[in-house]
């Protein structure tokens, strides 16, 4: 039982374009926990999230979800995983409701799509083709995906980009509800988003030692 919904990483390092981005990163996240990734541009926040999601392979180190390596047991991990990348994955030709229904169905756990739209104030826009959405509204649609098909582990890459103040509040409320229900969150962000009790992972501390200045 102690392994239930525990997400850990040990000694992770990542190489991008033949350059070591970070090395020796470790984290330990229990049910209801939150982890905030910080660090300057290029310190590897997005790379770490992609690595956690399984889109990137770590150059070294191991990940563990419920005591198992996600790469070995991908079915359970993927069923729990909800990843929000830089891009919104919104198809302009589909309506807001169709976009959401597609992703919720693909995640295998179609929840209440209409309610998810309501969380981020998109309900009046449901029948509107997504090409008429503003950047912030597209981001809200991408966030609604997280709520529409419940997953226990959220990996969010800069979720607040383009969001107005009320939407950030809605996101914070959604995050709190998710954690209250025992969900886990990893957020990479530059802005101050309320994550009570979140652990901090400053990636600049894990940058490889540069050779002494020439």
């Amino acid at each position, binding site marked *: 039982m102690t392994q239930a919904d525990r997400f850990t990483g040990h000694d992770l390092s990542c190489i991008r374009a033949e350059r070591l981005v970070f090395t020796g990163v470790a984290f330990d996240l229990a049910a209801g926990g939150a982890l905030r990734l910080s660090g300057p541009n290029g310190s590897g926040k997005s790379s770490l999230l992609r690595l956690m999601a399984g889109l990137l392979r770590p150059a070294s180190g191991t990940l563990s979800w419920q005591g198992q390596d996600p790469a070995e047991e*991908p079915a359970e991990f993927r069923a729990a995983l909800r*990843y929000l*990348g830089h*891009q919104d994955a919104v198809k302009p030709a*589909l309506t807001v409701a169709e976009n959401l229904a*597609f992703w919720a*169905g693909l*995640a295998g756990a179609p929840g209440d799509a209409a309610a998810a739209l309501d969380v981020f104030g998109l309900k009046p826009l449901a029948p509107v083709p997504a090409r008429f959405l503003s950047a912030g509204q597209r981001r809200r649609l991408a966030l609604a995906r997280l709520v529409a098909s419940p997953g226990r582990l959220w990996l969010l890459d800069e979720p607040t980009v383009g969001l107005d103040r009320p939407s950030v509040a809605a996101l914070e409320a959604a995050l709190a509800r998710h954690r209250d229900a025992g969900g886990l969150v990893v957020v990479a962000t530059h802005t101050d988003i309320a994550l009570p009790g979140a652990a901090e992972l400053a990636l600049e501390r894990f940058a490889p030692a540069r050779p002494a200045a020439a």
Partner: protein
Amino acid sequence: MLAGLAAILKRDLRLALRQSADNGMAVGFFVLTVILFPLGVGPEPSVLARIAPGILWVTALLASMLSLERLFAADYEDGSLDLMALAPLPLPLLVLTKCLAPLPLPLLVLTKCLAHWLLTGLPMVVLAPLLGVLLNLDPAGYGVLVLAMALGTPALALVGAIGAALTLGARRGGVLLSLLVLPLYIPVLIFGVAAVDAAIYGTGARPHLLLLGGALLAALALCPLASAAALRQALE
């Protein structure tokens, strides 16, 4: 996951029908280019009848390549490909895909190819005999032409998917794609034309059709894996 694949297929078809530019253009290109040949070569019926199978096949090759560039590109650019690659796996298929590729990408490739074929290959299979009339194709060749096209065009889509996946993210990917894919299309072209010619000259189209079928089966087995490996590279 199979429901998920059906959802991806449905979405791709719906997207194509709403913004039909890419696939509609490929079919339009097929028709227009075939019509150009009588104007260029001259309206001599015997000459046209002789080269009709070759014209239809070469044009089908080029047309199916035309829309390949967008096969994965749109989903790659807007981040959809990331999410599809992370979709949950079905348990029975898990063992299979685990030893071959850690993501459900081969199945995704198959689904995208099916959508591509339904939108460009199938219309070309239907239109080929009509355009055959225009080119004075020998009546004995029509049945085999449709059969050979039905076997050959899915193989074209599958082989093309490798090129589409390899050129993801490359600038001017379309030109590179044709250089990569056209040489691989040659077997389908040779046996496709040979089947129709054999039917017309009465030498038996069966061996050519069997070879085309073999090519399709080999493409079905191998191309999704090769494309998935290339896609995985693009996602990293």
